């Protein structure tokens, strides 16, 4: 069974390496600031002992005052997992760094989030709608859609 690592434990490691980058940490997840998301993701992937080499899923949540993007990471080598989160508070033009350069599997999922939530991923190689058609008005999974 895959061991779910505590966000608090990982947060201690990351605070040492990138001071002030962790916004919140619980036993279940780790919430990091958007500007340091990419380097923390890279750290989680490359650091021996963590080795999060597999991105299980990305999803997003609309909390109305902010968008939260959730990254579920797994290490195939150590059989452990971590939930990484990041938030963007700008509702008109929400932006996060793309993690496609780290995990190729993020490509379509980031496009889906861009399509349905309108969150832009900076550095994505091909950021365009994937489910809906070009020219569709709005982003249907936002709470204020309709």
């Amino acid at each position, binding site marked *: 069974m895959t061991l779910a690592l505590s966000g608090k434990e990982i947060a201690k490691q990351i605070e040492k390496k990138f001071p002030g980058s962790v916004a919140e940490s619980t036993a279940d997840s780790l919430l990091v600031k958007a500007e340091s998301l990419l380097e923390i993701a890279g750290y989680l992937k490359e650091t021996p002992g963590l080795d999060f080499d597999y991105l299980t899923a990305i999803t997003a949540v609309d909390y109305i005052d902010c968008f939260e993007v959730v990254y579920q990471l797994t290490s195939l080598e150590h059989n452990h997992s971590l939930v990484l989160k990041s938030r963007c508070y700008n509702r008109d033009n929400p932006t996060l760094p793309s993690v496609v350069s780290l995990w190729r599997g993020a490509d379509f999922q980031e496009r889906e989030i861009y399509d349905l939530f309108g969150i832009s991923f900076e550095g994505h190689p091909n950021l365009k709608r994937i*489910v*809906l*058609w070009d020219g*569709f008005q709005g982003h*249907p999974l936002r709470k204020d*859609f309709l």
Partner: protein
Amino acid sequence: MEVGEVYSSRQLDKDEGKQINELIARSQKPIPDPDEWLDEEIKRNILLTTVDAILDWGRRASLWPAVAFPACCAFEFIATEASRFDLSRFGMEFIRASPRQADLMITAGTLTWKMAPQIKRIYDQMAEPKWVIAMGACAISGGIFRSSYSVVPGYNRIIPVDVYVPGCPPRPEALIYGIRMLYQKIDKTSLFGEDK
């Protein structure tokens, strides 16, 4: 006798050659047609019907559905097609991968607006005369997804529908009943434009 002798490849060849030569010797005359007497009977009879009747019969008795099954109703259609309900009883065992060889579209499933141009295209590619059965709640009206931003509220927004089969999904019996209804519709069409 040694085993190697009996099963040698030379012996096998000899046996095979002998069988073939015997078959050739036996098969010097064609086997007479058991239905030969029919010819004479038919020559002595005249069958009278109308062009419409024979044309409608031909059209309805072997409808070939096109492949256009976007969602879950397709599984009820597959059940209808399979051995238990056996749609081939009605001359419908073929589901044509090419719409150009099909004359019936059974729209089994929810249609999204993104898929709609492709369904229209399949319909346009089918050769006339052609018919459409809207199968299931989604095909009739969009079903429970009717108010969704991405779902077409009924195939009749895209293509003309002949028969509506309600259900979510309809049972195979219901689909067969719908096909029988379509038969009645086809039987009423006339070559000369006006319905009988």
